[in-house]
């Protein structure tokens, strides 16, 4: 159970890191408009 919670923490972190990378790529394409 404790491991399951730790695994959830890892999953959430991984998703956020990927979102961060996507954010970086979008920002470099000029998103949001005018940035």
């Amino acid at each position, binding site marked *: 159970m404790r491991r399951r919670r730790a695994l959830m*923490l890892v999953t959430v972190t991984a998703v956020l890191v990927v979102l961060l990378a996507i954010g970086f*790529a*979008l920002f470099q394409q000029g998103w949001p408009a005018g940035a």
Partner: protein
Amino acid sequence: MRAAAWITIYLALVALPMLVLFLGDVPPGVAFWWDLSKALGFAAVSMIGVQFILTGRFRAPAYPFGIDIIYFLHRYLAIIAAALAFAHFAIMWLLYEDALGVINPLTAPWYLTLGRVGLVTFILAVVTSEWREQLGLKYEWWRLLHIFLAMTGFLAAVAHILGVGYYTAAPTTRALWLSLTLSWLLLIIWVRIVRPSLLRRRPYRVRAVRSEAGEVSTLVLEPDGHSGLRTFQPGQFVWLTLGRSPFAIREHPFSLSSAPHQLPEVAMTIRELGDFTQAIPSVPEGEIAFLDGPFGIFSHHRLPRAPGFVYIVGGVGITPVISMLRAMAHEGEKRPLWLFYANPALEQVIFREELDELAGQLDLTLIHILQEPPEEWAGETGMLTRGMLDKHLPSGRIGKLHYFLCGPPPMLEAAEEHLDDMGVPRRHVHVEIFNL
């Protein structure tokens, strides 16, 4: 809440190398997938940088979680970092194959070769850790290999980024990036070179090796030429190196079984399981040893207001618990205590006589659970069940007590589920998993 704070700090550290790019003149984007590939590469490298912090044995980051969970995070975050590094490569390979050039290291640009070296090294570091036993790698050799792979991979990846140089071309960005990398390197030097040197000045000597029940030995150490540990919380553990220098790789984590009032002498009770632990009974008196610690949050000293404690223990998991019970007897502890202690057979119960004595000195209810009980046995048998907990614990106070669990993972999983079903708040359940 703790988890949210942890994720925020972690993301900030991972984002730092990308944010640093914006402090200088950030070059324009190329295309979404191209830039995503680069961002994944940056994220993978900084995640691997943070991996060094996680296992750097700093006390503060381990504080809210316990070192077992820190190693658990280290393990799974490594898999994710390697996956991101692979995704970085895969996007380039699928969509921009021309940019990757030839594979032959003799003709390929050095920075692209280093990128490939980094990727292969990270994957090897994960594979050799996940399947160490199947690969027949001894712990000591694996550790040496792991440090080598991690450092080679990290340096190759950083050189790859600077070599490609698209995002790190501006002088300010380059300087910031280099200083960031330098700080990771200093961290590694501190952890692997400076700290062991400091430990070298504080050697210990083996004073006695005592044989206990059930293929278990207690190793008693005393400081040699210094005052030893100033203090520790009963239930904490240390990293032990036996013989030679503290740079030796034969280093393992063990809970202290002695109590703080017995300092400067310290004792560890160790089951003869692996290559290292099997050698414990034959360690000669006077052998040199080095300790790094204490670490861990598995201690009743952190819970001065708890109304009572329940210990759920299997086999050699008694080590941190006997330390707490010894300390409690010395401190004149009055709070009620319960110890559920599971063992295969009566003759394998470690510290049996001492536990009986402690039960006389403390308000301690001792519940032995035996898988193979002797014929006249009237106590509990088989595996720990919810029924046993209900039978022995006071029904009105179950949710108020604090629970310390230490033993083999299947037993801990079962115990945690029983406690959850009984409505025990999660923050009242403290677990020590040592299955690194």
